[in-house]
């Protein structure tokens, strides 16, 4: 009698222990999966940040070169300066995306101006700067795609079962996409 009760008890303990272990395993693997996705987003984000910074560093040179040929286009230069300082002060993803969009339209206007100065278009250092700028734009497009893909994976995961049960408790919340304006989808280009 006593023996049967004991073995029943230990069987129960064993099952309970198994369930606890299984739950712990699921918790840990879910958490690790989320951490990994989260880190993907962070590293993709830092690439966007790098390229935004790189572009901001290129702009003073570009503006200086254009000014040498097109002195009277003050409005365009002011727009770029404003966009650049706005972008420099941006902290969140949304702010940076807004700054990015503003800079994009300011740059498009600059490149429209450039079209009117054939000598400027033939200037070697301008062509080089334009290539660096276009390369940075292209890297930004790639980085933005990687970031948004990462956000999609992450957001899908934390909203679906079973991660949705515990994601909130772990402090994971949906990450924002890096959204761009329709008009800004076209990379501003000077046609050579």
């Amino acid at each position, binding site marked *: 009698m006593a023996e049967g009760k004991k073995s029943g008890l230990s069987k129960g303990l064993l099952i309970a222990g198994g369930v606890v272990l299984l739950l712990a395993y699921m918790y840990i693997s879910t958490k690790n999966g989320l951490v990994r996705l989260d880190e993907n987003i962070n590293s993709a984000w830092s690439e966007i940040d790098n390229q935004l910074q790189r572009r901001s560093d290129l702009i003073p040179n570009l503006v200086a070169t254009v000014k040498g040929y097109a002195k009277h286009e003050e409005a365009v230069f002011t727009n770029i300066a404003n966009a650049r300082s706005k972008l420099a002060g941006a902290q969140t993803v949304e702010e940076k995306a807004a700054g990015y969009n503003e800079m994009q339209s300011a740059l498009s206007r600059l490149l429209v101006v450039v079209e009117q100065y054939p000598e400027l278009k033939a200037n070697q250092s301008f062509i080089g700067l334009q290539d660096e700028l*276009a390369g940075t734009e*292209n890297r930004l*497009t790639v980085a933005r795609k990687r970031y948004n893909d990462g956000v999609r994976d992450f957001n*899908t995961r934390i909203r679906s079962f079973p991660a949705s049960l515990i994601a909130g408790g772990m402090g994971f919340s949906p990450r924002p996409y890096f959204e761009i304006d329709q008009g800004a989808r076209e990379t501003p280009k000077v046609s050579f």
Partner: protein
Amino acid sequence: MTAPVGGDRPGFGKKRLSALVGLFLVLGSILPALDLPRAEGFVNDFAGILHPMEKEKMEKLARLIQEQTGAEMAVVVIDSFAPAADIEEYALELFNSWGIGQKDRDNGLLLILAMTERRVRIEVGYGLEGIIPDALAGRILDQRVIPAFREERYGTGLLQGMQVLAGALAREYSLDTIKLGLPHFAVLESKPPIEEEPSFFENLALWGVVILMLGALFWAYIVPFFFIFIPFVLFGKKSSFGTDFYGGGGFGSSGSYSSRSYSSGSRSSGGFGGGRSGGGGASRSF
């Protein structure tokens, strides 16, 4: 590309977000449908415009460069990059799908020509962005590729482009340009003009970094060492965490640099090493 389209009515939150998620899921499943050809070698003429002798010359140069530097140069001619939106998108997809360049060095180069759209692009792998900056890629196209293309001498233009790219690699790795058979225009000046003597402030900055690193080392290793070591000595073996410290490997974890030989052909699926590009390079119309 799969840019999320910013709505014309900003700020109606969740609905738009889920619409976006939906859009992404749709785009995500459509995108890989970009139908990429399989690599046939370093030189891939899918439009059938190259003379066999030109092709042979390019193959030989690419092979030499790979043997001597590990870098992989691919030349691709296609009819059209459609349905990709632009040559940049097509070049990036092709580059990363073929894996041009070695896996851990990302030292690949892609020279790609789309006949229908009359676009040409040099795509540079991550690891060569320092040797071939975008401005140099653009200059190579302007000076050596486009002029020949305008005379419909496509093989000449591609070969000359490759030769200048090889010249840039030769300069970086101090290769013999005569043995590579490079013409005079592909032999670049021995030092890029941008590099100047480090100024006083740059030196100062360098020393600042060194001092900071030493400081970090001090705080990360030496200070904790005393914090753990001193109680260990004072209180003897009762200190429970002392043994932990001696067990753990302090400086041991050395990042091992993969020292595989360049010429050995551990080449993967498409024949290339698995290198990646982040979108560096330059494009031109002609």
